């Protein structure tokens, strides 16, 4: 199995992409792999565009930033933010995103235009992750649905993902752990239908 994986996480400041990053980091370390993960602090966190580069490999990782055209996938909690990092995506790389816009700018583009652009890429998973999370009774777990949807494309075991989710939410109690695991598994299930 290919172990070298470059993932860009995208969203708007405050949408919680760093939780996804933390689970990827923990799962990778659990698999004895090297990790580098960059993140954005400071001004952009105030409602601006934010991204995190996650790099996982069994070999030493040099750069903290993913070179252009080298990302295996972009996981986004917002459709326009997904497209912001397209120059980083490699040929046949995967786009995974929630379909719900975060409209905090006055001239936010037409949703159909965004969706058409996303659909013009062969490998995409465009899902209403927020609705899926809400239906499961935990709208805050949108990011876990997306992580689940991406999980089979990432060379880390399902077991290590589940373990990392349990570890990360441990402090918040068993019920929250269960809710997040449920969201992750649902995302995984839905993506399996799309990808197959």
């Amino acid at each position, binding site marked *: 199995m290919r172990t070298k994986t470059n993932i860009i996480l995208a969203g708007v400041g405050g949408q919680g992409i760093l939780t996804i990053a933390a689970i990827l980091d923990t799962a990778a370390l659990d698999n004895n792999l090297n990790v580098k993960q960059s993140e954005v602090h400071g001004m952009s966190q105030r409602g601006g565009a934010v991204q995190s580069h996650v790099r996982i490999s069994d070999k030493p990782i040099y750069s903290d930033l993913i070179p252009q055209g080298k990302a295996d996938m972009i996981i986004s909690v917002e459709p326009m933010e997904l497209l912001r990092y397209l120059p980083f995506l490699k040929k046949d790389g995967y786009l995974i995103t929630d379909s719900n816009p975060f409209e905090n*700018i006055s001239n936010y583009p037409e949703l159909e235009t965004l969706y058409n652009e996303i659909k013009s890429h062969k490998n995409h998973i465009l899902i209403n992750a927020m609705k899926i999370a809400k239906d499961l009774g935990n709208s805050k777990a949108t990011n876990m649905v997306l992580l689940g949807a991406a999980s089979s494309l990432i060379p880390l075991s399902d077991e290590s993902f589940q373990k990392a989710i349990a570890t990360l939410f441990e402090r918040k109690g068993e019920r929250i752990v269960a809710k997040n695991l449920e969201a992750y598994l649902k995302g995984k299930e839905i993506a399996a239908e799309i990808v197959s």
Partner: protein
Amino acid sequence: MKKLLLGNEALAQGAIDAGISGVYAYPGTPSTEITEYIQKSKIAQESNIHSSWSVNEKTAMEAALGMSYAGKKSMVVMKHVGLNVAADVFMNMSVSGINGGLVVVVADDPSMHSSQNEQDSRYYGKFAMIPILEPSNQQECYEITKYAFELSEELGLPVLIRMVTRLSHSRAGVITGEKVAQNNIHLPKLSTQFQLIPMHARGRYQNLVDLQPDMLKISENSDFNTFHQGTNKTIGIIASGIAYNYLMENFEDGECPYPILKISQYPLPKNPIKQLFDTCEKILVLEDGYPFIEEAISDFLGENRKIIGRLSGDIPRVGELNPDNIANALGFDIVLNGDLPKVVLGRPPQLCVGCGHNDLFDAINVLKKETENQQVFGDIGCSALGVLSPYKSINTLIEMGASITMAKGASDAGIHPAIAVIGDSTFTHSGMTGLLDAIIENTPITVIISDNSAIAMTGAQDSAASGRLISICKGLGLDEDHLKVITPLHKNLQENIDIIREEINHKGVSVIIAQRPCVQLPKEKKDKLKEYKNVSIN
């Protein structure tokens, strides 16, 4: 066992393990997490390591020097522009030297992600004639910090560690080592060391000059400066700090055919640079920030085009390095799968929903329509977002504290109304002295302290101003009739406009404190603020 740490956190752990007794700092992106890590560290708490925030970078550095004077190891941390504030003590403590190990950590912000310039702190290190360390990865952040304290005590000088945003804010697995003990109190052996009257200062400066050859020798033998013997001598590469990672990213499995000199310790090691210069056809210099090394080793008249980098245009002159601009300089192709689609629009940062600054700007914007020539002088922090749409309330933004004093100067020039908008923490950091200037001359300016009781932009740290603003203004001698407190809420809009208008019309200094807690403050901090509620003007 590897711990997953940000570069900033690895550095902080290195400082704890080096046996510091205190860290002094004022928050500033990208440096903030260093101090926060120590504040949250159990070991640091158990070892009684001082870690509370200082009022500004100058007070922080002076306190760190005081701890060093007492014989203990101390660290002072700031963002790059913070070193401008602390420059007075920085330049003079290199002359006095230190007693307990003292390390200055400065995080630069190439590409200005959260800053107003991309100044390169290595120039300050050279200016002060002290050693500079520049880690390239998270593991080195940890090791270099421990080493920095040894080096500081060996030379009797402060040591500068230069970080950059991408290293500060990127995580990787770090292996930590043994913890060194803290120092006991011991006073300087030489009683005149810290007495920089001219007759003693001359001796201390001579000492600093005399140490330079030792510093060079140490740097030339440093384990953090490494030489890779390449086979292809058409280019020799000098890569400093994080630039080394971006360079190596361009070679599969780190197999680079060119000779590489990695630099993480200064003064610039002369021998390996000469070796590179003598054996290679060209030298490519890769450094994040200004062309510091390139300038130092380039021919002044530009007759010798052997050295290339940012000055020659092979690397963009401004902005941070990345694997791609280095690939370009090496002549490698970058295969892009697609361009940025036109449908993607910019999403600049903005004030949070429910932020009090928002309602203050609404009031200011109404008054802007009423008065001709109204100029609003802004300041650093979240209130700086008033420059952007939809507010567009602020005309200037330069540095910490400039709102009040620029309003004063503009008022002296004949501008009226001249309004200053400054956050509460920025006011205690650098606004108080400027207000005193205006009070002394009773300059007709209106100072609005937008008090959200937090250092908000960097993560809602405790503000030194909380509960103290009224007594500070009174203590500086402000006429109490022109000290007003308002609550910036939409329902108070008309009342607030009336109060601000009245003070604009006053022919002297007024201060209006617009008080509403930051929405990012956790509940327990908001509750704590209620203790200050009884602080009234009378």
